[in-house]
C-alpha cells in the first residue's frame, strides 16, 4: 500500500483509463484499435490499482470467480456469433444489409459511421471482454504470489 497522494490520484485515474479503454474497444471498426488493444489498456488500469493499493486489499473485492465468468462470457459471445452464420459457411458475416449494424459505407475516404460493420463490432466486444479478464487475472495471481499470500478457492 503506497502513500496517500498515490492512492488518491489512482482513484481518479482509473475512471479515465476505463473510459478510454472502452472507447477503443467500441470504435474498433472505424478508427485504429479493436478488441485486443482496448483489453490491454483496461488491464493496465487494473495493474495500476493493484500496485497503488496492495494486492491483499484488492483481492477482497475483485475475486477470481468474477473474472473467470467475464472471460468465459466473452469467449462464448465470439463463438456464438461465428456459429450463427452457419447457414452459409462458418464465420459468415450475416448482418451486412440488415437493420442491426448493417449500413454499407461509400467507397473511398468518408467520415466514419458507427452503425456499419456487420458482425465485427460485436466480435470486438467479445474479444475485448476476454482479453480484459484474462490479463487482469494473470496480473492479480502474480501480485498475490509475490507478496506471499495465496489465492482463495
Amino acid at each position: 500500500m503506497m502513500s496517500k497522494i498515490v492512492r488518491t490520484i489512482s482513484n481518479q485515474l482509473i475512471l479515465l483509463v476505463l473510459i478510454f479503454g472502452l472507447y477503443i474497444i467500441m470504435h474498433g471498426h472505424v478508427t485504429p484499435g479493436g478488441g485486443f488493444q482496448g483489453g490491454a489498456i483496461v488491464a493496465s488500469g487494473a495493474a495500476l490499482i493493484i500496485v497503488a493499493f496492495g494486492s491483499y486489499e484488492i483481492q477482497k473485492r475483485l475475486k477470481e470467480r468474477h473474472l473467470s465468468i467475464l472471460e468465459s462470457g466473452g469467449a462464448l459471445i465470439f463463438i456464438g456469433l461465428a456459429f450463427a452464420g452457419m447457414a452459409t459457411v462458418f464465420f459468415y458475416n450475416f448482418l451486412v444489409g440488415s437493420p442491426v449494424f448493417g449500413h454499407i459505407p461509400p467507397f473511398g475516404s468518408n467520415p466514419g459511421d458507427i452503425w456499419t460493420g456487420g458482425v465485427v463490432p460485436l466480435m470486438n466486444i467479445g474479444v475485448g471482454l476476454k482479453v480484459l479478464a484474462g490479463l487482469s487475472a494473470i496480473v492479480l495471481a502474480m501480485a498475490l504470489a509475490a507478496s506471499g499470500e495465496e489465492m482463495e478457492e
Partner: protein
Amino acid sequence: MRRVVAAVCLGVVVVFLVVSAFLLHPFGDPPSQMDDYMIQNSQNETGTNNVVAAVLFDYRGFDTLGEATVLFTAVTGVVMLFRAVKKKEEENK
C-alpha cells in the same frame, strides 16, 4: 567441445540470415495480389472502414479463434500454477 559445435552452428545460422536479408524483395515494393483485392473490396463486402479489423475478424477469423484459445489456455495454466503451492506446503508440514 560442445560449446565449439554450438558456436559453429550459430555462425552458420547468422550467415544464412544475413545472406537471405539481401536476397529478399527490395524494401518498399512487396508482391501484393491478395492484399490488393482486400483493399478494393472490403468496404462493400464486410462494410467496415478499418481494413485490418475486417481481415482479423472476417477474412481470417480462424486465426483469431486459435489465438483466443491460446490466451485462454495460458490464463488457466497461470492461475492453476499459483494455486497448487498451498496444498504442497500443507502436505510437507
